[in-house]
């Protein structure tokens, strides 16, 4: 892998940038691999990278039915935070935030991790109680999260409307300063480049059509649109399509796939310094380095794989945005799009071994998967390599839906991911 640096750019500038090598190659699939990862999103590519880097497993293929990073990785609003309530959640998301910090250097790819702070607004007494509960739990777990008065919130995010006349006046906010955003495409590309450099095959336009199992029931490989590929282990990291893939191996997962929409405004000069989330009016917003306001909308109410949603969902979100930031009604929506989010009953992910030997699953991130990318990939690689969960993902089992040991952030916090 040719190292990226300002010097490399200078050198290339001299020859019209014609000497840059491929960031990742596009090889033909081999007969078989030690590990096949299904899904070339951030979590999948990251898993392959950490398998190679931390566990020395380089005979790995990442299979992608479309183009790498083209699923939720390339469709989300890139919010990063770890101020979750429960120890289990705080554990995995904070593991991730620690990896975000330094990921650019680790991958030699600028993923533009920007800890500009994530501020969650409290609009009523109940919100205040819930956020205080988070803040105290986070402090004792070593996760930064602090309480701001409305005036402090306004100072941190000047466009914020803290008028008492607002429909739901801002009563305060919880701020995680280490929270922020990153450049979603760069995360996929950076992992892809770094994984490929360590010998991982990234195979795009290769859809898995079946999961093969031997007489003992263990995984033996996959059928794909580009032929049969053998594998000792298969890790499914396919977000909204995970339940479809798991059913190929006869494993039922408690997942439902919903459309989630997002939109960006036309680019404007810097006006919005941080990330703001509001659960009561349900919306989240930040401004990209390019100048676009990046706004996350809610999910549609019905399950779907269509990657589109209703206009009324976007309208409802913009109602809320313009209520919190009345200066934005003259801004224009430039692009809107939809992703497919896989939601579990307790809104927490599943990163675990499955009843099928050699089959592992990483899914159920709902609307919150991007922030977890490095941490999820890191511990999932451990789970696949060692055939046992990393302590951080040990609680995120499939069994919890049987014994009732749920990790119900949604119920406990009523805070959107």
């Amino acid at each position, binding site marked *: 892998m040719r190292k990226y640096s300002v010097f490399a750019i200078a050198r290339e500038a001299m020859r019209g940038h014609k000497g840059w090598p491929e960031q990742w190659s596009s090889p033909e699939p081999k007969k078989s691999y030690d590990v096949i990862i299904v899904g070339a999103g951030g979590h999948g590519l990251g898993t392959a990278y950490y398998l190679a880097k931390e566990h020395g497993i380089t005979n790995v293929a990442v299979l992608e039915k479309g183009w790498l990073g083209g699923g939720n990785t390339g469709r989300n609003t890139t919010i990063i935070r770890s101020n979750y309530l429960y120890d289990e959640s705080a554990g995995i998301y904070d593991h991730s935030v620690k990896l975000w910090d330094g990921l650019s250097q680790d991958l030699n790819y600028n993923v533009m991790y920007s800890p500009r702070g994530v501020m969650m607004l409290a609009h009523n007494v109940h919100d205040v109680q819930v956020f205080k509960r988070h803040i105290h739990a986070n402090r004792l777990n070593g996760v930064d999260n602090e309480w701001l008065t409305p005036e402090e919130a306004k100072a941190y995010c000047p466009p914020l409307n803290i008028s008492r006349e607002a429909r739901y006046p801002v009563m305060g906010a919880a701020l995680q300063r280490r929270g922020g955003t990153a450049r979603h495409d760069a995360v996929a590309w950076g992992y892809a480049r770094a994984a490929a450099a360590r010998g991982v095959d990234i195979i795009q336009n290769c859809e898995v059509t079946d999961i093969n199992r031997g007489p003992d029931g263990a995984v033996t490989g996959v059928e794909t649109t580009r032929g049969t590929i053998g594998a000792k282990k298969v890790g499914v990291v396919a977000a909204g*399509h995970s*339940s*479809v893939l798991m059913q190929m191996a006869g494993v*039922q*997962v*408690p*997942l*439902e*796939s919903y459309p989630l929409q997002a939109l960006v405004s036309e680019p404007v000069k810097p006006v919005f310094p941080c990330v703001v989330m509001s659960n009561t009016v349900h919306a989240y917003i930040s401004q990209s380095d390019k100048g676009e306001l990046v706004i996350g909308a809610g999910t549609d*109410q*019905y*399950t*779907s*794989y*269509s990657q*589109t949603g*209703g*206009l*009324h969902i976007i309208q409802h979100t913009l109602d809320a945005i313009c209520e919190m930031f009345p200066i934005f009604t003259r801004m224009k929506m430039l692009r809107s799009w939809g992703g497919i989010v896989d939601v579990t*009953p307790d809104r927490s992910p599943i990163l675990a071994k499955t009843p099928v030997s050699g089959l592992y699953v990483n899914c159920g991130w709902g609307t919150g998967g991007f922030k977890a990318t490095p941490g999820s990939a890191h511990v999932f690689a451990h789970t696949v390599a060692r055939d046992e969960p990393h302590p951080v993902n040990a609680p995120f089992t499939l069994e919890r*839906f*049987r*014994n009732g040991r749920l990790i119900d952030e949604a119920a406990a916090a009523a805070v959107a991911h």
Partner: protein
Amino acid sequence: MLLIHCPYCEEGRPELEFRHAGEAHIARPENMAELSDEDFERFFFIRSNPKGIVYERWRHIHGCARFFNAARDTVSDRFLTTYKAGEPKPDLDGEGK
């Protein structure tokens, strides 16, 4: 915004009048008390989540307030049919897509 044909109102109505109510044809077991943990998990948590035709429940909550069932293609979001609660699951093999 979907246009949903309500089998009770006998006309297509805007999605804004409806509330989705999850997968259809998952009957609450008669013998709740004897249910095993596995059976309870299947009943309460496991959903088919198909990429293709899904049988789902809707409630015309801001209309006639009835719960009813629908068969919809989750790839195109096209409704194949809607039918009243309690009516048998229609056989739609080969349709949709």
